[in-house]
């Protein structure tokens, strides 16, 4: 168990080093694309902790991404806290809020009611923001003044500078996923997913674990938001609505549950590729719908499942793996 965890953490860290190298070498017009991949990759991987490991279907993951962004921007601009402190507090606060609302509500529900409850929480956050124009900018959103016209470290542009932070968040999310999956906690999560009542009989309470994972996943989503908002210089309620949450779910389902490679493949195919080829938004929506339909019909395990099938068919590839 421990050996697997260490090996996989090593791979995650190596990938992080590689990503830092790419982030400093990528041409200027592609930095935003790289940041999009990192941010959506981290969001989808953290989402998979709930969907893949516990069979919970949240409809409000993007809301915590937005909440993290808003909290750090407001703490920085209104309260005057330095950005690292504001960001750290925002992440912890989002995880705590998730735990507090999670324990009585989310932890006790499963399936459909879990989706409805998280949908309600997400919509509530969007409504609160839209109805407070003074503090949170209302429907117009907030402009982030930090970093405008300032010199960034290493002479980087602000986009490239935030690439490094997003790599850090991305690696943090990967490490969380690796450690959860290859620890005794991961076994207990699978046990709860398989059979809640039998898990109760053995003395562990599913409510506690669902709340814990909901809090961790929401905190990680908030961390992405903290890095995203100052990078683009703006945060608005559109980026945290249910549409966005469902889009994240689509990326994960197309990529494949419980598979880091699958989740990232989903992000590359449906988020990064359409931006790279500058496709119309309607074409992208059609692609997402089409991919979901194909996956549902052909291979419910997503791209990861297709890849596994391919390697099973080709003996050459199997030997290489």
């Amino acid at each position: 168990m421990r050996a697997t965890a260490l090996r996989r953490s090593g791979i995650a860290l190596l990938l992080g080093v590689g990503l830092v190298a790419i982030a400093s070498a990528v041409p200027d017009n592609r930095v935003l694309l790289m940041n999009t991949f990192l941010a959506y990759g981290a969001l989808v991987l953290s989402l998979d902790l709930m969907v893949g490991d516990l069979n919970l279907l949240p409809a409000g993951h993007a809301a915590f991404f937005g909440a993290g962004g808003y909290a750090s921007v407001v703490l920085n601009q209104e309260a005057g806290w330095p950005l690292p402190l504001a960001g750290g507090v925002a992440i912890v606060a989002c995880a705590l809020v998730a735990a507090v609302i999670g324990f009585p509500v989310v932890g006790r529900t499963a399936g459909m009611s879990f989706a409805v409850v998280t949908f309600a929480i997400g919509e509530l956050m969007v409504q609160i923001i839209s109805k407070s124009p003074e503090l949170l900018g209302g429907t117009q959103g907030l402009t982030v003044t930090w970093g405008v016209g300032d010199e960034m470290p290493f002479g980087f542009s602000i986009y490239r500078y935030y690439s490094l932070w997003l790599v850090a968040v991305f690696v943090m999310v990967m490490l969380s996923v690796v450690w959860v999956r290859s620890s005794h906690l991961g076994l207990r999560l699978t046990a709860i997913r398989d059979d809640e009542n039998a898990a109760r009989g053995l003395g562990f309470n599913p409510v506690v674990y669902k709340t814990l994972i909901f809090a961790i996943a929401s905190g990680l989503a908030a961390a992405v938001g903290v890095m995203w908002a100052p990078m683009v210089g703006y945060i608005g309620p559109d980026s945290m609505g249910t549409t966005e949450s469902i889009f994240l779910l689509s990326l994960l389902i197309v990529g494949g549950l419980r598979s880091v490679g699958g989740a990232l493949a989903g992000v590359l195919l449906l988020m990064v590729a359409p931006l790279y080829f500058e496709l119309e938004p309607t074409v992208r929506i059609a692609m997402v719908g089409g991919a979901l339909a194909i996956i549902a019909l052909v291979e419910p395990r997503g791209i990861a499942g297709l890849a596994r099938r391919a390697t099973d068919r080709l003996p050459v590839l199997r030997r290489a793996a």
Partner: protein
Amino acid sequence: MTIEAPFLSVRRLSVTFGKAIAVADISLDVAEGECVAVVGANGAGKSTLGKAVTGLVHVSGGSVELTGQPVGADAARRGALYVPEGRMVFPQLTVEENLKVGAFTQRRLGDWRTQRDVMYDLVPRLAERARVRAGLLSGGEQQLLAIARALMARPRLLVLDEPSLGLSPTAITTVTRFLGQLRVDTGVTILLLEQNTAFAARLADRGLVVSLGRVERTSLTQTQLGAISVATE
């Protein structure tokens, strides 16, 4: 002079779910090391009784005490484990992972591998299939695994809910032999909730019959247990 409290003592227990009364008024005592069968038809309240004894349902009236202390949500940590009916193994986990998860409450106290090896000695079949996903085992093997998984927590009281349900006669014999051996080796106390009275008679020291949430007959001997039928039809 104090009278020593019985190992498990259930006093005038009642459990209700809304307006439905699952257990109306049940009292029973189990001595340490004893195996007591509670037999009854579907809906007699056996499972609810078992869950109340292991702190898994909210008790509406009466009391459940384990060695003189009331039982609550901490029942599993105090050694009272419930093995649900229908061999609820975790199908996605391997046999070995099922056992490892079962050792959850004892993880800090000792190495789970020691207890795993004890289980493998008792049921060599599980050792052979250690790396197989539990969902692929036969019905009898799954039942053995479900019991072994609970034993990983080194319980003092094992509540078995219909371990014979859906098993072939051969598998029932295997489970009987396993539980018999287990009592000899570990002296674990067993509360057996059953419909199959013949199976219960082979294992239990004595039995009682419940019907519609109440105790109908008490202190049945093994012979009496084997002779009655509690089937609904």
